[in-house]
Every structure is written in C-alpha cells, then in structure tokens.
C-alpha cells in the first residue's frame, strides 16, 4: 500500500515536470491542451456555450448569447485589452453574462494566455 502510493507520487512528479504548461484533466497521458481545446472544453473555458466560432468547422452546437468570434485581431489589436475582457468581463460590463475567468480562477493565468492567443488568431 505504502509502495503503491509512493510510486504514484513519483509518477505525479515526473508527469508534472515533463508535461507542458497545461494538461487535460481526464487524460492521464498528460496531453497538452491548446488554447482552442481550452476554449471549447465545457469543463474549461466553454466559450462555445455563448460564442460561435464561425470559421472553425469543429465549433459545433455553439450558443448565441454572445457575439461570435470573428476578426478578433482587427477588433482587439491591443492584446492586454482582450486579456482583460477574458480575465474579468464585469469590468467592461457589470451586467455581463460572461464569467470572470481569471478573477474567479476558472482558468489559470497560463490557460488564459493560451486562450487569448487562440481568440486573437480568429
């Protein structure tokens, strides 16, 4: 029993050390999640529940509560402004439906950076 748990500890340490910044929660192989994965995953960003991504064929069954992600680079040339919107959307609009992903630690800072890159690429 003791042996088993120490093996697990070692494994966890090795995985944590070797894997990239973010790992899929349910995926023991430690596959890295991309910004897109995080944005689509309903246990992570779940942006799709409100925002459509019209130019991504994989973005199916998206909601329509929020504006679609299009021409984001043109509309958000300032990366800091885009990041701030995702980190705490209530700053720009106190009545917003959008969850404050950074402020409420729904996503980690690294995850938010990846999502910002992804959204800016759209």
């Amino acid at each position, binding site marked *: 029993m003791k042996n088993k748990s120490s093996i697990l500890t070692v494994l966890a340490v090795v995985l944590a050390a070797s894997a990239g910044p973010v790992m899929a929660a349910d995926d023991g192989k430690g596959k890295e999640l991309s910004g897109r994965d995080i944005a689509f995953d309903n246990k992570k960003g779940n942006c799709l*529940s409100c925002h459509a991504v019209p130019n991504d064929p994989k973005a199916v069954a998206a909601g329509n509560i929020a504006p679609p992600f299009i021409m984001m680079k043109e509309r958000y040339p300032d990366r800091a402004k885009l990041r701030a919107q995702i980190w705490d959307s209530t700053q720009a609009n106190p009545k917003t439906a959008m969850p404050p992903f950074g402020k409420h630690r729904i996503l980690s800072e690294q995850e938010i950076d990846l999502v910002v890159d992804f959204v800016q690429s759209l």
Partner: protein
Amino acid sequence: MKRRLSIFLGCLLVVANIGAYASPEDDRKALLKHYKQILPNVKQADYVLGALALNPDAKEQYDSIMMFPPFVNDVDVGRELWEKPFKNGKTFTSCFRNGGKNVAGSYPYFDNGVGKVITFENALNACLRHNDEAELKYGSNELGLLSAYAKSLSDGMKVNIKVEGKDALAAYENGKDYYYSRRGQLNFSCAICHVDNAGKFTRSEQLSPMIGQAAHWPEFRAGTELVTLQGRFRQCQKNVRAAPLEYNSEEYNNLEYFMTYMSKGLPMQTPVFRK
C-alpha cells in the same frame, strides 16, 4: 396647519416607499413586458411550455409524447399514496378543500401564523403530521410522486398566488433577491439565463423564460425520471458550479414563492414530460 403638514409628510413617505419597492404586481408586469419585447412571437399562455414554446418541432414531439405519457405508471404510484387510508382511516382528501381538486395553484402561500412560506409539499407533510403519520423526506421520490398525482388534480387551474402583508412581502423580496444575485465560481444569477437571455441558446439548449416555469411541476425528464421544481433549482445551480441548497430550505421556499407569483394567472400543467 401642523396636522396638514404631517399628513403631507406622511403622503410623501408613502410615495417614497412605492418608489423604492416595486410591488409584486409591478414586478410581474415589468417582466411580462420584457418577455414580450424579446420573445414577441410567444403567446403569454404558452410560457408554461418553457423552451418548448420556442421550438415548434420540439413542441410537436412533446404533444405526441403527452398523448400516451410514459410516466402514467409513476403517477399511479402517487395516486396509491394519495388514496391509501391513514391509520385513523382518513386520507389526504380530508386535509384539502374540494378533496384536493383545483387547490395546488394557490401554493405556495405565506402563513402569518408560522411566519413562513408554505409549499404544496409542506401541506402534504402537514397532513401526514396532523394524522399521526410519518412525514416524507423532502427531495424523496415518494414525496415527488405523491405531489405529481396530487397536483394533477389541479391541472389547468390558474396559478393564484397572494403576497399580502409585510412579512409575506419580505419572503417574496428574499426570493427575488436570490433570483437576481450572482453566485458561484461562474458568477451567474438565475436571471442572467432566464430573464436577460431567454430564447437564446447556451450550446444547443434554448433558455426558457422565467414566467411560466413554476407552473408545471413535477416534470418527468426523459420519460420517467422525476424532477421537482426545487430539484431543478439544484440542477441549474450545480450546472453553473454554485452550491445548491437543501430541499425545503427557507431560501428555496421563498424563491419558489417569488417564481410562482410571476406565473400568476397562467394555467397549471401538471405533471409534464421534458426531454
């Protein structure tokens, strides 16, 4: 002169109070107006259909399922519970006006004696208590099935909730605050989804308007899975990572009171199928 002045001041105070607290009826009218604006094609009477009123295909499917409801056997279990005599020989019908027909639409009500909101489930349990029978557990399937049958006796009755007096109003306001307050990691209030965004889609789920929501319980989801109104509160709260409250907690009962008032005048539909 002095007297005149104080009357004048008194009037001012009343006016100020009205300004600060919209009455439940003002709230309901304002909400109706809001839904008329964002869902112009939905008839008011159809609000009890929830999201089905927004999707003709889903409504058609619902209609055909309701012709032979898959939950008839479940409701039958509820009927047996309702009809089974207590040890003293009486039955539930002895506790309700009209043998329990067309009564459920007046619940919840505010009981000034105990200073609390009394839900229909509370009334069923009070009946058991007064007849020296064991109460049923809130959130249990048994109480849910009993209420499903008992409420079916009020199918079609118009929701008729009263908020009268200071304490009743306080309970109503408490439920309303709960409905409009953000909570949980995702920072949602009930109103963000069911008021601000009614008719919109989150993923492929279309959001139903709050008016009408309290008028058709319990539901049988996927055919036979019984869900009570407060069970649905808990599901929504779990979905948005907020801590659900206990069944029959004072907050949930107040929330149910507020929400049912908002459905005032609409015909009850109980029980119903939902997918």
